[in-house]
């Protein structure tokens, strides 16, 4: 029998990425007639622990969690195990977990780096001078930057000129990128570990009044509408998006939770699809209505994207 109620504790539910993950989870839950309850830890690790207890009190059939911090959920997993509560993680592996669904951060970054590298080569460039608007707080985002740089290096001479902490937020990214560009604006690639970081880097570039002709901006996540808006602008340098299809992540995760409940053999890591999106291929996956500021995912086509069975690199490799 299928599970009836599934609980999901999201780490940061107001973020666009997770709104779309929830949308994917909900879409699949609706198809299967499952009741999905969502609690948002809002980046508070203590609160997440409490919410897990609350879900156990409520007695949901499966608990899905995106950890605020993967080390921080180890005791919850231990408690869940003691209570016999099937638990699924999203995002990053943690000690004591049963199964995980997540994109491969390194590989997503790698795909974007590969796409950027090809464009540079086609432009006859031999060097990539990169401003990495990163987020060292999370191993996931470090892996993205790493993958991006390693892929670039296979095409051209890749130099990381700036390694910044933009907090993953557009406003702090603008600020740190402005300072960095003031110190040295001789770059031709801006990489952002998410869409806000990439856009923040681009905005700083624009506010500094620098020419956009030779610049390439690559973002990560396909979190929401931001990259679609920018990518579809005439003459934009925002050429590549390491798409992670959050809706697809949710959709996959729900299937995994049901499998776990039903005792089907589940993989330790269920990899969800990623792809380098450009202005030429995005329409295959997203139906974008610019005027109405809406997007609709094509679950079918996303499901067709070939996925790795295992990531090339994990945070343990850092």
């Amino acid at each position: 029998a299928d599970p009836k109620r599934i609980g999901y504790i999201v780490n940061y539910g107001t973020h666009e990425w997770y709104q779309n993950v929830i949308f994917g989870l909900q879409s699949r839950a609706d198809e299967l007639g499952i009741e999905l309850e969502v609690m948002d830890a809002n980046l508070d690790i203590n609160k997440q622990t409490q919410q897990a207890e609350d879900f156990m009190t409520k007695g949901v059939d499966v608990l899905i969690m995106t950890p605020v911090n993967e080390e921080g959920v180890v005791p919850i997993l231990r408690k869940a195990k003691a209570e016999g509560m099937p638990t699924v993680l999203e995002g990053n592996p943690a000690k004591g977990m049963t199964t995980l669904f997540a994109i491969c951060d390194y590989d997503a970054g790698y795909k974007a780096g590969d796409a950027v590298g090809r464009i540079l080569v086609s432009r006859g460039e031999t060097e990539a001078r990169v401003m990495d608007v990163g987020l060292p707080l999370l191993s996931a985002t470090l892996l993205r930057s790493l993958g991006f740089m390693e892929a670039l290096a296979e095409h051209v001479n890749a130099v990381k000129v700036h390694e910044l902490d933009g907090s993953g937020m557009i406003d702090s990214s603008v600020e740190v990128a402005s300072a960095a560009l003031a110190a040295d604006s001789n770059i031709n690639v801006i990489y952002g570990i998410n869409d806000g970081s990439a856009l923040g880097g681009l905005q700083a570039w624009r506010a500094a009044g620098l020419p956009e002709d030779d610049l390439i901006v690559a973002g990560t996540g396909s979190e929401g509408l931001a990259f679609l808006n920018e990518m579809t602008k005439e003459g934009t340098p925002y050429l590549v998006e390491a798409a992670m299809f959050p809706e697809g992540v949710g959709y996959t995760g729900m299937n995994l939770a049901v499998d776990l409940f039903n005792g089907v053999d589940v993989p330790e890591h269920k990899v969800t699809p990623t792809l380098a999106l450009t202005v030429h291929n995005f329409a295959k996956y997203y139906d974008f209505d610019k005027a109405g500021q809406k997007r609709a995912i094509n679950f079918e086509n996303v499901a067709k994207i070939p996925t790795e069975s295992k990531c090339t690199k994990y945070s343990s490799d850092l």
Partner: protein
Amino acid sequence: MKFLQSNESILFFILALLCIFLSFYNPQFYSIQNIHSILRSSSTVMIVAFGMTILLTSGEVDLSVGALMSFVTVIVMDVINISGSIALGLIAVFGFCLLIGLINGLVRTVLNVNSLIATLAMMLILQGSVYVYSMAAIYNTHLIPLFSFIGQGFFLNIPMPVVIMLIILPFFVVLLNFTRYGRYFSAIGSNPDAAKLSGINNNRYKVIGFVITSLLVGVSGVILASLMDTGQQGSAKGFELIVIAAVLLGGTSFMGGRGTIIGTILGILILKIIDNGIILMRIPQEFQLIVPGVILILAVYFDGIRRKNSD
């Protein structure tokens, strides 16, 4: 000479030291681009800090400025997207800020809730309700060039945010130092009973302080929206702490009674130059937390020593 005995002189000294040190370390420090970058990011903080200086002087505080600022970015972008009119966007923003300032002020004065708590609660309310307003970030679809100009443009080679700050600045310097309202704010902060018994309507001025601060947040919020080209929930995170830290560093007392705009400006410049220097020097960005913490404590400590000696 009198200047040298003031708190400002200590701050000025720290600032000069920082500048000299950084320019030795990296000549890029004095590049016009870098100065633009420092001033541009300082000005949004300064604009709000003018209001915060007034509030702290009158013994109040507003913790909701960061949350309000991100709300403002969302409103201004959305309203301009829908209406295609910057004027309407600004009206909506300032109407909203006026309302929030009034609520803060009235909760403080009519319900008599300590402003730390009242505005902390307002912060929570705004942080939540911005998502009630729109779950998704609002992107610039109106593409009006004038709007981008507000945050990103230059006037006589000065970044627009700085120009806006410079337009607002003299008003507050005069207000606090040379008008009776400035005196009222310090009297209210220093001894509210004595102020009231001198015929000052404390509550009115407190409400005005909250309203001014909120309106200034509106100005900064519009600049930020233009700079990000987005209306972004959750932006300006921790903004309130930076503003308050800078104002305190500038020599304004948290207990009320004493406040200076020039000190506030110096405080902000110091904090922003530290941030900038840490990136220029490619030091781990963790120091962006540690160094200001140390400077805050030391500056206030030296100010205390100076005060003791001069009394």
